[in-house]
């Protein structure tokens, strides 16, 4: 039997969630959903894990803090301590209050850009990538559930489409792959 991918197209995010709930409760594995905006509450239904991007941002931020302090210590304390206006650069901890603004800005710079670059790479959204959504309407007003027969050996394609038809679905499309 050829592998099939089945798309259930909905017109409303709530209807999609009802549909996904019904499929999952009947033991069908939902591969993914495609929507024009985030569907709140879909992740636990179809088993999408929480993203760890915030942890990555924290790591990038801490790296930024350390780099900034190390750099400032090297430039202004170790390599060439200057005495400007009777305020000598003596030790990192003594000048720390004056070093906080740049340290803060550099922390934010590293956290923000590090996280955004990670986000783009993890999402595989990079300049020049082709569009990979199954239906162009999914960025406009349609909400789509994707089910693959290769993930669901216990169910026939007909059984899955029947199940989809019992939900408030707008249309069902099948494709070989």
């Amino acid at each position: 039997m050829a592998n099939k991918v089945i798309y259930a197209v909905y017109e409303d995010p709530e209807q999609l969630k009802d549909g996904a709930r019904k499929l999952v409760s009947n033991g069908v594995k939902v591969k993914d959903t495609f929507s024009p905006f985030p569907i709140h509450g879909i992740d636990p239904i179809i088993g999408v894990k929480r993203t760890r991007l915030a942890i990555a941002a924290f790591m990038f931020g801490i790296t930024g803090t350390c780099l900034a302090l190390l750099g400032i210590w090297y430039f202004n304390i170790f390599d060439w301590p200057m005495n400007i206006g009777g305020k000598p650069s003596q030790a990192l901890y003594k000048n720390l209050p004056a070093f906080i603004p740049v340290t803060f800005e550099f922390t934010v710079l590293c956290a923000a850009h590090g996280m955004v670059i990670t986000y783009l790479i993890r999402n595989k959204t990079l300049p020049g990538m082709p569009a990979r959504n199954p239906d162009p309407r999914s960025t406009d007003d349609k909400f789509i559930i994707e089910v693959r027969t290769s993930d669901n050996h216990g169910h026939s394609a007909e059984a899955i489409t029947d199940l989809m038809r019992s939900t408030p679905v707008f249309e069902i499309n099948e494709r070989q792959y």
Partner: protein
Amino acid sequence: MHSEAAIREPLILGHKTYHDITSDIVSPIENKAPRGWYILFTIAALIAAYGTGCILYLISKGIGVWGLNKTVDWAWDITNFVWWVGIGHAGTLISAVLLLFRQKWRMAINRSAEAMTIFAVIMAATFPGIHMGRIWMAYWVFPLPNQFGSLWVNFNSPLLWDVFAISTYFSVSLVFWYIGLIPDFATIRDRVTKPGMKKMYSLLSFGWTGNAKAWTRFEEVSLVLAGIATPLVFSVHSVVSMDFATSIIPGWHTTIFPPYFVSGAVFSGFAMVQTLLLIMRKVMKLESYITIKHIEYMNIVIIVTGSIVGVAYITELFISWYSGVEYESYAFINRATGPYWWAYWSMMTCNVISPQLFWVRSWRRHLGFTFFMSIIVNIGMWFERFVIIVTSLHRDYLPSSWNMFHPTWVDVGVFLGTIGIFFTLYLLFARFFPVLALNEVKSILKTSGESYKKQAADHSHH
């Protein structure tokens, strides 16, 4: 499904479907621009060209062509710098702070406010750049290894803090804006039919799919960026204010500056957002999305921040007397009654008195009045920076060196030029970019759309 109290005014008027939102926002991009756009663009581009000419003239001749003198050695350039950075603050406030407070009305205005921020920060960054005189040595502001021995930048200096604050602010605002734009570019990509446009928006949309995990990540990135952009936006104008506050010039040397500058920045930024949006909603027919309620919310922010600014002015005045420092007192007496009294009283009228008029409900919901007020506030905020900078400098400790500042045609040309460049960039944005955050506006349609709210209300009556 989450539903909203019936007494809250709807944020999307009329009966709209998801597809209507896409069409309303994308069709101006697909179709030919209206005549008004070409007229405005021509005017803005001409002013921008004149301003660019003035900047090139300035760079070739040196900053002696400005009206600066030995006493007033900082004037319009730094006034314009602070004015533009301040205007930039509203965009990040709307996109980051209001996101953390879960304000749904930000959805319709954040995209264009962020664009405004980015263009305003570019204009701001122009001024310290050209003020260097030798702009080709601008990279000296960064701690780079160099051939002069161990010569590093001074990390104790607020001017260097500014370099880091402004560059971080600009680049973080830019990526924040672009992350939000990617899904909307994908919407345009999947809709347009002309091959050239399809190609361009495919490139811009980075192959966005909109699958469940991508949206989870999108929301996480938006939230974390908002979380770190919030202290960032407050730090940026605080650092700008420290350019003055850490000096020992009477009139500048005040600890109230950071909060006072930040609220002034938000105040002027919202005024500029009003100016731009009131024109844009009319020209691009966005009355259903940028409603009177949105305008009213922004006017309320203007009352709040304007009142904080007013309290700051009066506190500053009181402390100059209460401190008993005669130089400090003189700086303030001179501001109000000296040769620059007209600048001081313009600032007081525009920034302290005029925003209080918005306490009248029908006035803050009146479009024409709001537009007029937005211009007044921006004039007032320009005068605020001019008053702080020039009146504090022009009469220093030596009465023999007291002097006035007279701008030259280059001062005026560069300032007008940045306004021209700003509007040119903004008009290009309005022509080719989705001016509303499509994905965010769609996400509030069922809770805050007029017809859906009415349905929900009818439902609960039965």
